């Protein structure tokens, strides 16, 4: 190719020193694009309901939550109508849960590619995570309808929404990286993921509000990054008074740490994937 120069590639056993080398990833951005595109396309092609699934899942959960937590248990929802309160949290939660699950199983699911072709393996979990964004986009439209219905006008805070989406995706990716790399070695991980997702849901203020946690512990609660994401969503969309500041800061630090750790762990094991998967 005249367009880009190919320097000498050295084949040697990798040492103890791991480099992230994200430039590699940039070279393969077209592959990333097509893998995401494939996942989305195939998912919508193979299912009868197609895009409706993206809406149904959070919507039905929202209905169930509204009946049991909202009506019967009377869980306080910070003065916001409970259905919107729950749905605004279910959106990022569904995005996170789906992306993390897909990423966690992604390497094992791409066995045939890994053993036959070279490309930066990072492309696989990243593509899996990004695939969740399309569903998210579809179900986001429902939220807008709900907000109209309940007469909620968003404030300028809505402009910060992309940040929270990025944070949710980063959380899913950072956990997904650890999971998928471990999954290659230990197939137990596959069975751990559904349990982890369920458990995590209880730890995240989706059905309830983080205001139930006393302010003193709120920052500690932020150690669960999804708590920061979910409260951030509510703040940005529904005009909750209280900014999730300190909690969010803790969440960001946790995600960044997890993500960098995950990237290094992944890169370290990358060269063994083809032999072990």
């Amino acid at each position, binding site marked *: 190719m005249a367009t880009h120069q190919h320097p*000498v590639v050295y*084949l*040697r056993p990798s040492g103890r020193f791991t480099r992230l080398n994200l430039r590699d990833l940039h070279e393969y951005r*077209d592959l990333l694009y*097509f893998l995401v595109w*494939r996942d989305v396309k195939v998912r919508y092609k193979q299912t009868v309901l197609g895009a409706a699934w993206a809406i149904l899942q959070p919507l039905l959960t929202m209905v169930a939550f509204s009946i049991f937590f909202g009506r019967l248990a009377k869980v306080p929802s910070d003065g916001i109508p409970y259905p919107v309160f729950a749905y605004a949290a279910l959106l990022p939660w569904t995005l996170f849960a789906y992306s993390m699950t897909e990423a966690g199983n992604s390497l094992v699911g791409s066995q*045939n590619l890994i053993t036959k072709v070279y*490309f930066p393996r990072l492309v696989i979990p990243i593509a899996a995570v990004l695939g969740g964004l399309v569903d998210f986009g579809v179900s986001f439209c429902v939220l807008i309808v709900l907000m109209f219905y309940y007469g909620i006008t968003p404030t300028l805070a809505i402009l910060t929404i992309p940040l929270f989406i990025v944070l949710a995706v980063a959380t899913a990716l950072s956990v997904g990286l650890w999971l998928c790399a471990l999954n290659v*070695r*230990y197939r137990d991980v596959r069975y751990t993921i559904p349990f982890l997702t369920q458990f995590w849901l209880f730890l995240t203020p989706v059905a309830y509000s983080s205001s139930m946690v006393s302010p003193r512990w709120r920052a500690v609660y932020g150690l669960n990054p999804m708590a920061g994401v979910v409260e951030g969503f509510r703040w940005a969309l529904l005009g909750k008074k209280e900014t999730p500041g300190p909690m969010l800061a803790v969440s960001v630090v946790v995600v960044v740490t997890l993500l960098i750790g995950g990237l290094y762990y992944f890169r370290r094991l990358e060269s063994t994937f083809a032999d072990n998967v």
Partner: protein
Amino acid sequence: MSQTAIRLEGLGKAYAITHGVQSRLKYGSLRDSLANGVRRVFRGRGNEDDPAELFWALKDVSLEVARGEILGVIGRNGAGKSTLLKILSRITEPTEGLGEIHGRIGSLLEVGTGFHPELSGRENIFLNGTILGMRRAEVLRNFDAIVDFAEIEQFLDVPVKRYSSGMYVRLAFAVAVHLEPEILVVDEVLAVGDAEFQRKCLEKLRSIGGQGRTILLVSHNMAAIRAICTRGIVLSKGRIVAEGPVNAVADQYLAGALAGALAGALAGIGSDHSVETGRFVVDDISIRSLEGSVIKTFDPVEILVTMTAKTDVSDPGLAVAVLGADHHRLAGLDIKDFRTLQPMREGERATMGFRIEQFPFLPGAYYLEIRVGEMAEWSLELAGDPLRFDVVETPVYGGRRLTQSMHGTVALRARAIVSPEQ
């Protein structure tokens, strides 16, 4: 830039073979690892000798491939060919040694890697192309050529799960050969598709080579290797055991492989395994090419029988026949049709036989049947069981692997005529 495309120095790849419970062979379970970790803590460090044993799939491989060279990699199953290609294509890392790759490398270790059955041909071209390392713009640029090569134009928007296996393979190969890498690594993908498609593939590979690009080809189809490659290496048990011009290396490999496979059958030929008939002791039977260590189609071939008369024989006779794999007689020669033989005394020894100017059989397994006797009594006796020999694979008609059900056994010197000339 240097003229070297690939340089390998002392490359080796080891896999751990774990002894013990079967299920632990491949995947560790988290429990085992945790248990081991705990045990290690209690036993203290330093005692980490695992029950794993190392298996060297590749060892001490040093090799230099020049730019524009087409190298055939020959070897039996498990010789390390695929491991070598996997290391070269960076799918797996070597355990030791160093390799240098000068230029973009494209590998084709499997036809249709990453094809998704639900997606259409058009969609799969893009998906597969980028998986193989092309940029989207490159796929776009080559799109028409790929569709053309695969001959699937009217099915472009049909999901590939509805394709015939022939169409599927054609499309997959078409994408791969349009990769335009400087170095192309190909593993055993020529075994698929129909005759015309195989010819196109071989021609395409040859033309890629002609453009100064480097190819490493692994195939069990020796005819294809001979047709395309300029140089060859033979791998055995992970090491390079032979290296040189492709025909010489292929001959050497096949002679070795045949010697191994046919040791039993050939034992009858050796002088210490003589066969006795009523009149003769047949000391030696041999069939060999005058052009190499193995027999190839159209080679000059000699069939010689050395025998000792047990009694006086007034009119010795010799007939040889070539039988097919099913012991059906394909051709026969009787020495009486050529000349009269002198009487032989008891204990007298003679060597006789035939030279066949152009051995007219296609690659495959054959049997040699020898009869000797006293023609004065019209008796010819079989000298033992028919002996197996092989005509090794050569590109008789272009390089495709020939099947006896289609091509029969007789080799024809032929060329195609099309009128009017296109």
